[in-house]
């Protein structure tokens, strides 16, 4: 049911972990539904320089988390915000239809992390 690419990212997930001094953190999902993911980003000169994730969930949840870290690193904030759920699924050569809605949360978590980064930046500027 999963593509080879999904299985590869599931078996050998890239960028697992936390960033203690992250510039932005985003969590999406609900453990009651079986999927919960947190994405951590470091941003320098408007570019995502480091990204890590932690995920509780099924094969698709783990594979999409891993995939988005590869897709987002090195991109500007604006470019990263344009990554959609479908882009992530496409990069993985597709997801089973049933998993498209519930487990394909990585794009949302990345957006939330970027918003968190922007909010923190705005607060910093205010206090300066």
């Amino acid at each position, binding site marked *: 049911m999963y593509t080879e690419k999904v299985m590869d990212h599931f078996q050998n997930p890239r960028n697992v972990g936390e960033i203690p001094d992250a510039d932005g953190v985003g969590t999406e999902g609900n453990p009651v*539904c079986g999927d919960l993911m947190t994405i951590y980003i470091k941003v320098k000169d408007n570019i995502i320089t480091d990204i890590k994730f932690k995920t509780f969930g099924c094969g698709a949840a783990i594979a999409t988390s891993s995939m988005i870290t590869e897709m987002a690193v090195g991109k500007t904030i604006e470019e990263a915000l344009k990554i959609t759920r479908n882009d992530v699924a496409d990069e993985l050569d597709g997801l089973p239809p049933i998993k498209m809605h519930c487990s394909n949360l990585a794009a949302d978590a990345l957006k939330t992390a970027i918003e968190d980064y922007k909010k923190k930046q705005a607060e910093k500027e205010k206090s300066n």
Partner: protein
Amino acid sequence: MIYMDHSATSPVDPEVFEAMTPYFTEGFGNASTLYKLGRDAKMAMETARKQVASLINAEPKEIIFTSGGTESDNIAIKGTVYRLKNKGNHIITSNIEHPAVTETCKYLEKNGFEVTYVPVDKEGLVHPEDVEKAITDKTVLITIMHANNEIGTIQPIAEIGKIAREHGIYFHTDAVQSVGKIPVDVKSMNVDMLSLSSHKLYGPKGIGALYIKKGVRLEPIIHGGGHERGLRPGTENVPAIVGLGKACEISEKNLDKDMEHLKKLRDKLIDSVLEQNEEAYLNGHRTQRLPGNVNFRFTGIEGESLILHLDSKGIAASTGSACSSIKLEPSAVLMAIGLKEVEAHGSLRLSLGRENTEEDVDYTIKAIKEVVDTLRKMSPLWCSKGE
């Protein structure tokens, strides 16, 4: 591969396969015909009926062949309540039945019948007094499974059967998971009807049987040429029936040996996994469970991921996690024993069989530890007490 999903299905025993093959080729006759080819098929079928009856201490004429557990359950439940619809419209069952029973009851609810779903306790046991309390003057059928397919809990069927008998109510049990695994005796269990399936006991798929106690009359739900006492018309699947019979004969012969072997493996698996992994729990009853059934749950991880990782290590197992189901709903059985959704997501069922060895179990114990650790390391829900 280490196959640990025998509650889903089991491999066909080579001896069973060998017994079946002549009936696909030279012995292809229709068992209802009069010439020798047909009579031979009929004789093979009647031998199988004796073998099935012997395993559950029934009379051969009390056995009808069906396409499997689901059909047996449907024929028993609908056949009883349709027959007795002028007497009453109330059915009692439990809330951890197989969908073959639950969905049949739900269908009947939409068609004028009333169903009481008796709850189970935290270990998955039905309390006979709860069944007795649910009886009304409209109750025509009690149907409670013998052993649960997910958590392996074995119900006090004889006691429930005694209550049913005292109240003059028909009693059916779905024994798909227990026949051939633990002693099943229709007389001492006080049952009027019992469903069993071939592919759970090393027989072929697509064949099963229904025990109907002498004197119990059912309304047919399938109509046709009158085969199997008119309750399951349709030309008999002779090779599969022969296979089921042979599988029952082998199970009867090996029952004590199999049970001892499986209990030993099961207990080692349970004790070692619970000891080696923190926040690992056993679902179901510790002792009142099928000899080959193990059902764990692990905090902070999701079952589908667990199954996929075990698969890549060559172990076939299953989970009650919603993420692995077609309906995206967690196991109804795990919810019925009081687990939260997030707990049900982290469940793992390993159902052992005759061919599993102690080496298989040792390898599995090690593999589970590795996979659980890997998944917890990436889980935002897991903070090890050790760290």
